[in-house]
């Protein structure tokens, strides 16, 4: 520290500072990358968005004349002009209900267990890796599993319940992963705050962890469901019908106990299968039906995603750390 002045000046590095012009040129040069990245980003977004828009508009134009109220209230028919998607949209709705009722509690509970209760050791690590991998398994594999397990081993039939369970399996990893991520986003100090006043683990989970991670969990659930709604392969594998001219029995009945679960065992079809069936017909007229059904399916998915965004916005408004 006691170095004297002449010595210290001799070791000073050459000045980095240049003229104002030098500095401005340097900044302009460095900023070029910002511009390049922005342009690339906009291009990438544009390509994706325009492709989707072109496909959607094309489908709308092709199916426009079929998008009439009767299209929603008619069963499929041998005549293209009389065919509708009644059985398909009812089937899709019912299957989605089963999927959500099974996948949401199971997936959320699994996520909470893994984050809050499970000891952090190699077993949990293995489980974690497997769950992440399961999200990448092709859906046809789930279909084969479901055919062997649900249809034959458990004898659940080629029914709404089998389809719902299959799609629930398919989206379970998505629900678990998004639950865990939502829980991890809660700051440690909030969790500590709850424990510090004497809350048990369950009280902390029930009063804090679940409510605060709800926006993230719901987003994951809806993203999962909007993936499930368009799945075709596993549903075909378990044996959904392609032509069905009746609806499953109503869940509400006239007699006590006014509820019936017979619809769970009913044969069914879903939107993507109805589309697939119509596109594979040689008669051109059916292709318009397929386009119309496709447009409706895209619309259903977009609505679900929009709902997810709105819900997340609403719930997050009051959650600030």
């Amino acid at each position, binding site marked *: 520290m006691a170095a004297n002045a002449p010595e210290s000046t001799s070791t000073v590095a050459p000045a980095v500072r240049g003229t104002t012009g030098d500095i401005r040129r340097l900044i302009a040069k460095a900023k070029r990358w910002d511009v390049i990245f922005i342009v690339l980003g906009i291009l990438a977004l544009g390509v994706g968005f325009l492709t989707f828009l072109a496909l959607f508009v094309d489908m709308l134009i092709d199916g426009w004349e079929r998008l009439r109220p009767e299209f929603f209230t008619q069963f499929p028919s041998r005549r293209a002009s009389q065919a509708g998607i009644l059985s398909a949209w009812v089937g899709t709705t019912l299957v989605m209900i089963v999927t959500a009722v099974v996948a949401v509690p199971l997936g959320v509970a699994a996520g909470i267990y893994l984050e809050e209760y499970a*000891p*952090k050791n190699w077993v949990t690590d293995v489980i974690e890796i497997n769950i992440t991998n399961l999200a990448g398994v092709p859906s046809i594999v789930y279909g084969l599993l479901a055919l062997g397990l649900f249809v034959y081993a458990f004898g659940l039939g080629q029914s709404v319940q089998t389809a719902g369970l299959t799609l629930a399996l398919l989206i379970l990893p998505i629900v678990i992963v998004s639950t865990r991520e939502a829980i991890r986003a809660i*700051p440690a*100090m*909030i*969790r*500590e*705050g*709850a*424990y*510090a*006043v*004497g*809350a*048990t683990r369950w*009280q902390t989970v029930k*009063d*804090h962890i679940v409510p*605060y991670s709800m926006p993230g969990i719901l987003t994951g659930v809806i993203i999962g469901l909007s993936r499930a709604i368009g799945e075709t392969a596993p549903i075909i594998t378990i044996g959904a019908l392609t032509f069905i001219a009746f609806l499953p029995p109503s869940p509400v009945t006239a007699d006590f106990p006014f509820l019936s679960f017979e619809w769970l065992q009913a044969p069914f079809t879903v939107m993507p299968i109805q589309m697939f069936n119509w596109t594979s017909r040689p008669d051109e007229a059916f292709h318009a039906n397929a386009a119309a059904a496709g447009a409706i399916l895209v619309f259903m998915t977009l609505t679900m995603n929009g709902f997810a965004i709105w819900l997340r916005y609403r719930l997050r408004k*009051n*959650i*600030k*750390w």
Partner: protein
Amino acid sequence: MLGSGNAAAIAPTHVDAPLPPLKAEARDLHFHYGKFQALKGVEMPVYENKVTALIGPSGCGKSTLLRCFNRMHDLYPGNRYDGQIILHPDNTNLLADDVDPIEVRMRVSMVFQKPNPFPKSIYENVAYGLRVRGMKGKNALDEKVEESLKNAALWDEVKNRLNEVGSNLSGGQQQRLCIARALATDPEIMLFDEPTSALDPIATASIEELVTELKRKVTILIVTHNMQQAARVSDYTAYMYLGELVEFGQTDHLFFKPKKKETEDYITGRFG
């Protein structure tokens, strides 16, 4: 250190006033984060209705020691306590295996470094500890919430908006809300872990004033980075360094006539 470190800290090294009753004491307390030993044989008394400050450079173990008093370390795997923290008058060893950490936290509450109100209403923040204790009935809860907010010097500012979200308050108000939350359950000891490090000087002054007020009701243990703060609010001060309690004493003595060279160096700003 010539092997003198621990022995000297067993009793206060310089106390002139008669000793107040003991509320708690750490006895030969060791603490490990996995393989790292963060506390080495700490012996420290905590006197009833007094403010005890823990000071020392970063990483000296003062927060670790504080968090032993409500078993916060139990939340994370790989932590280990050895030794005892005795809570008087019932002589409960807070660190004993058969003592539930939840029981400990019901008797010893805590205020954190950064204000951490729950993203719930102001009312629910204060009422949460009471609800956890099974308290029901709107009147009883209302009364207790009001009392706690008054004791935390926050009532006048929030009485007309108890249903608003706690995180909309200013930083200092949030911290007073957290104090009200910790106070609502009538704790025997309150732990403050650098409660003003995220606050501006005015908010800091109000928290310090509050701490001085609160000691009439409750025993206080406060970790602080700020030596002036320790000098202002505390009755006793413990100086820690590298996991050891170097010196403990009445605050005015420790600051003006420290017995140990290390303490003096730290207090006079020669290091740390």
